[in-house]
């Protein structure tokens, strides 16, 4: 297997060809905040938290969606990147209706965690209080759009892992919204297998089990990676 050697914040690492910059960053023992990325799902580079600077070019690239290449010199923690990351997290908080105090995911929320990671103690941007909906039509699960950060993990896990493609994105800009089926109530979408993978991967409390209440959500964000690996490596006995 061919290997690429590169540096991450000055630390030399070797990663297999095909690895992403995020893999390289992790191999170097550093870490980057991520929201849209989830191991096992196709990266989309949408949340911009894992942006890194390629030394020399000054260009910013999303580590999750950029292939590591030989000789790259990656900077992950320049003061400028840190400031922009914090601004991005503030923008996430300000564009939705995130009230950690009574959220089902309080204590198990990646948005809450990245706020801590980037040192966000308040949002400098005024909260927008968008007018959004809650869809509790599914017998087991519900989606509270107020808490959605449009990471599209649910869209991708349902499409790529479960193969049902229940979820998609409608509208554009600040009006973007995750929709079930053809913008139907979730409970009426026959394609939904009720597998719960979207609940597992949702980084916030947007998609949750109805029997969970404040701070009770347990996400299983490792599952897409496990399932993908099991498939790729034929780990199941019946294969």
């Amino acid at each position, binding site marked *: 297997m061919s290997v690429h050697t590169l540096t991450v914040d000055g630390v030399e690492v070797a990663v297999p060809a095909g690895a992403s910059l995020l893999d390289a960053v992790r191999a170097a023992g550093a870490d980057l905040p991520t929201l849209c990325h989830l191991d096992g799902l196709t990266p989309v580079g949408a949340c911009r938290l894992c942006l890194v600077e390629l030394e020399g070019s000054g260009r910013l690239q999303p580590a999750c969606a950029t292939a590591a290449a030989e000789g790259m010199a990656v900077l992950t923690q320049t003061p400028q990147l840190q400031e922009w990351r914090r601004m991005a997290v503030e923008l996430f908080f300000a564009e939705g209706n995130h009230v950690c105090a009574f959220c089902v995911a309080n204590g198990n929320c990646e948005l809450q965690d990245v706020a801590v990671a980037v040192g966000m103690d*308040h949002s400098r941007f005024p909260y927008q209080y968008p007018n959004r909906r809650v869809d509790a039509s599914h017998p087991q699960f519900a989606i509270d759009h107020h808490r959605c950060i449009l990471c599209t993990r649910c869209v991708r896990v349902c499409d790529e892992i479960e193969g049902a493609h229940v979820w998609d994105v409608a509208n554009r800009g600040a009006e973007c919204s995750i929709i079930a089926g053809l913008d139907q109530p979730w409970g009426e979408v026959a394609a939904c297998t009720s597998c719960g993978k979207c609940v597992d991967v949702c980084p916030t409390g947007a998609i949750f089990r109805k029997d969970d209440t404040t701070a009770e959500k347990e996400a299983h964000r490792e599952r897409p990676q496990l399932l993908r690996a099991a498939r790729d490596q034929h780990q199941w006995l019946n294969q």
Partner: protein
Amino acid sequence: MTSSTSSSPAGSPPRLRFATVWLAGCSGCHMSFLDLDEWLFELAKHVDVVFSPVASDVKEFPEGVDVCLVEGAVANADNLELALQLRERSRLVVSFGDCAVTANVPGLRNLWAHVDGGSRQSVLDRGYLELADTGAQHPHAPGIVPELLERVLPLHEVIPVDLYLPGCPPPAERIRDAIEPLLRGETPAMEGTAMLKFG
């Protein structure tokens, strides 16, 4: 704990004039503050509590406050007036808890800003007319019942804030770890889950 007027013993650092304020919030942050239990005696050695809903009966926010913890969002005319006053009269203002930092639960009525009549009318109608068992009417007592602002604001959108202490409520240890350095004239490091987490 009551406000003290005693001067500091010779040789020890000057006692800080300490205030806590309760705007639009549930008082949970103050309850968490009281959860500091015996550490409050420690605190009392260093500060004079010159204004506080839980530790003093002073009605007028005093001049020359060193540290002021502000719980709650700015939701009505009284909150606004007090916020402006405390800023003018305090050296260091701390946004104390999620309501002060983000508007949090009191701010939820801002979700009704788009509907006819706006958020103020919607919340009053809901609270005093739709949910009334008997005698449905809007409260109206000019000069006694403060008028609601149309939009509930976090404290820093009204006045400059020096330190943010998030949490709903902030755990007692977080409050202590934020205040302790202030007593020594230092700035606390607000980092990591122990010090920063919302909710």
